[in-house]
């Protein structure tokens, strides 16, 4: 029986999984959980599995209830997430609250997953407080958050916290190699580059950014600044991101076309189209942003390698092993490393604040080169 459960598909969180299964077995289900831990370690997947298990003890994955939760058509299951990058809006929360106060359609539990709960606007989070504290009977909230600093303490205080640790490196490698079918070399490199951030490792491995590292290292270790090279490097990174979004855009256009051919002419058609397009736009923006963040992780990985060299530590800690020859030629002071990291973080913030990424990167490389 056990091996046919959705639980079996969750890797690297044995303790957490046991804990959650225990809650179901002992029938001590409470009304609000907060799953927190680093990005990309499988929190949302675990939340969906927990949601399935609440209405199907085994989380079999094949019954009507389990399938309904997986494809979001379960009548008593609600899934809320930021549509794209930005935020969870007040209207999303108030709509949810209205639904919660109606009876369930089936006899089980009503389960609500709020994914990326740290992206709830403060007003949305505040609107949730009351129902989160005392929802009607047999309602279970599962909030998922990777940035606890942006979860109101009034929210977390109403939930039972379920902590997810970062995945162990072997687990990440296992996932990259066996689940995502990424070559062993590439997987190793991605794990090293990510500096232990698994979500990043997975995305880096499948992004087209690995090739750009050589140019980055050249720029960083160069003796004197070269504006042309900085500009070129920046546009390389932006182009890589645009390439990824262009691919997504094609699929999205098909989706819009199909949806429109269905609703065309009906009164709500314009609204549906607008909603769909807004969602798509945000999705693309999110992927683009992720791409930029990864590029910055790569830039930072180079500085980390420089630090390792600087401190005469074991070379096994060097991430960009393939470029260690170039790295060794760098002359850099520790203070410069500190300010380089600060510059990278600043660029990260800029991009998050929607500064033109090309400008942000150009600016970053101008500054970095000037520092060396």
């Amino acid at each position: 029986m056990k091996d046919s459960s959705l639980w079996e598909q969750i890797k690297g969180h044995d303790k957490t999984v046991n804990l959650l299964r225990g809650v179901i077995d002992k029938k001590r289900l409470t009304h609000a959980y907060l799953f927190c831990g680093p990005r990309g370690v499988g929190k949302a997947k675990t939340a969906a599995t927990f949601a399935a298990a609440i209405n199907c003890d085994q989380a079999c994955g094949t019954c009507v209830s389990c399938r309904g939760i997986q494809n979001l058509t379960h009548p008593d299951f609600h899934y809320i997430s930021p549509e794209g990058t930005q935020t969870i809006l007040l209207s999303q929360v108030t709509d949810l609250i209205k639904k919660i106060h109606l009876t369930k359609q089936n006899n089980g539990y009503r389960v609500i997953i709020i994914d990326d709960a740290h992206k709830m606007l403060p007003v949305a989070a505040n609107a949730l407080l009351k129902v989160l504290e005392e929802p009607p009977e047999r309602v279970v909230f599962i909030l998922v958050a990777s940035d606890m600093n942006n979860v109101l303490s009034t929210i977390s205080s109403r939930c039972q916290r379920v902590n997810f640790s970062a995945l162990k490196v072997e687990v990440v490698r296992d996932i990259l190699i066996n689940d995502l079918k990424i070559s062993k070399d590439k997987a190793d490199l991605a794990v090293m580059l990510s500096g232990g951030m698994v979500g990043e490792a997975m995305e880096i491995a499948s992004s087209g950014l690995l090739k750009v590292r050589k140019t980055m290292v050249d720029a960083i270790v160069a003796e004197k600044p070269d504006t042309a090279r900085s500009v070129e490097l920046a546009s390389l990174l932006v182009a890589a991101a645009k390439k990824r979004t262009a691919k997504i855009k094609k699929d999205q256009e098909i989706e819009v076309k199909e949806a429109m051919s269905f609703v065309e002419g009906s009164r709500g058609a314009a609204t549906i189209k607008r909603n769909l397009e807004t969602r798509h736009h945000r999705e693309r923006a999110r992927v683009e942003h992720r791409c930029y963040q990864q590029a910055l992780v790569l830039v930072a990985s180079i500085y980390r390698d420089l630090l390792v060299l600087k401190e005469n530590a074991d070379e096994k800690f060097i991430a960009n092993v393939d470029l260690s020859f170039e790295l060794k030629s760098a002359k850099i002071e520790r203070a410069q490393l500190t300010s380089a990291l600060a510059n990278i973080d600043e660029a990260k913030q800029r991009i998050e604040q929607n500064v033109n990424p090309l400008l942000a990167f150009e600016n970053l490389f101008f500054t970095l080169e000037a520092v060396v």
Partner: protein
Amino acid sequence: MAYVSLYRKWRPQSFSQIVGQDHVSRTLSNAIEADHVGHAYLFAGPRGTGKTSTAKILAKSVNCLKGSTPEPCGTCESCKTIMNGTSLDVIEMDAASNRGIDEIRELRDKVAFAATIGRKKVYIVDEVHMLTEHAFNALLKTLEEPPSHVIFILATTDAHKVPVTISSRCQHFVFRPISMQDMAEHVIKVAKAEKVSIAKEAALVIARQAEGSLRDAIGILDQLATYTDKSITNENVVDFLGLVDAGVIETSIDLLISGQTEGVFEYVESLVQAGLDLRQFVSSILSYSRDLFIVSQVKTEQRLHLLVSPDKEVIKRLQKQAGQLGEDRIRSFTAELSTLFEAIKSSAQPRLAVELTLIRMMRGEELTIEAMAARIESLETQTNKPGSASSATIPAARIEPPRSGPSESAPTKAVDEAPRRTPAKDNTARDVEVTSSEADLSSPETKAGLKKVEEASSEAVGKKEGNGEVTLDTVKNMWPEILSEAKKKKLSLNAFLIEGDPLAITDGSLTISFGSRAAFAGKELEKRKNAEILKAIFSEVLGTKLDFSTIVDKIVKEPVVAKNEAPKREEKQEEGLGKESALDMIKESFGAEVVDKKT
């Protein structure tokens, strides 16, 4: 029957059951007995300190069908419906979903209706700070002429965001974070009633983790009761809460003492391999360094047990490390770690940030006291920057006329009005005092700092007016245009300019300030070619000639101090010492105040 969480099950139902808010329950009980219940209350305090529970008890007390009493019967129809939320006379609304002016106007019309079965209509407005400005104004009208059958209870976790016009019309009660002692006792009491065995130590760890919130404490107890089959040990708690094992942290301090920088990579690698969250790690090492600090200051063993750990061995080891490091280094560690804690929240490479900081600390290159002071000063000057984000965050309250002391400054009528017949046990004087955060605002240090800011800005204003031509405000307003114009003319010019902030205009010349990291951008701008283009842009956009010069802020822009979050574990110990968070330490060491806590 569905399982009801312990914190709901153990919600207090009468004033005597409220934990750790004696000053509030006593004053309110007395007011009810004396039939002196006010029309508007403001309950302010952190989460889980009993604001909403108290509001509901007050509602029950004034509406109990057996007569107005501080001990409502809990069995009459009124009490029962208030408890289960179906009362027609007690309206619990959350300000977040009813924050607009329309909702509040509607409320204004509806308060005129009489109560149904109770005597009073009680409006409990949760998280009232979420109201919009207009909504507050509309509410003000109602609070100004409250109908006699209506009681407003405004509850908030963020009293600073409630306009003074509102709070001054309310009796203001400050709910304190529950002390660790009270909290641990309550945890043990609940555990006993629920037939859960819990070690006293474990209760203390829970209390510490709960950061003054009873709801958090009971929530943790609830979880632990489930996962440990009702027998909770200290190890269970540490393991369950995912607290970083003290041993790991201790090792890190030993490593720091050893000064072997190359060992840092191995150490951090082992953390990452073990699946440890680096943010959690930094937060743990930060509170560990706080323990080190306390150990270096406090000599009485008994106090140390209460403040740091009941374990003698732990204290011994801490004392040893504290001795090796010395007080100054502990202080600067704490400061450095606070900065790191803030920085890695949004770092592209948290691991590198941790490694760099640890290495810097080992080399004794951590920030010196002078450097810290300089940073803080810079933060103050930053607020002076017109239009900069930080200047916008100075709460209006700070411009109020100076007050003579914290107790007077509390915008509360409770002091004069509410009868306080029962003599307080030991802390009478603090009955109605303001919270520490409020005290911060009116503390002399802050005021001095503010005064400086105000003076500085009025100076700037004077100069700008003296010039008579382009004002700084104009430049600020037109800055986006200037930037976009620069972008059209020369891409790199825009990239440099974006780093700067217009600071002041003196004698027809604009001063643009650059952060130290962007110092070179400033230099680039001053190069003749760039300067010419920029001046051309100025006259184009502003319609007048404007010269410019650049200056460099010698310090990084990031605020120095952690957001008050991590190190605040016990904001309120019974004695002053317990208040030693990293933030307080820095304040004390440098006589400075955090002007802007925003990142």
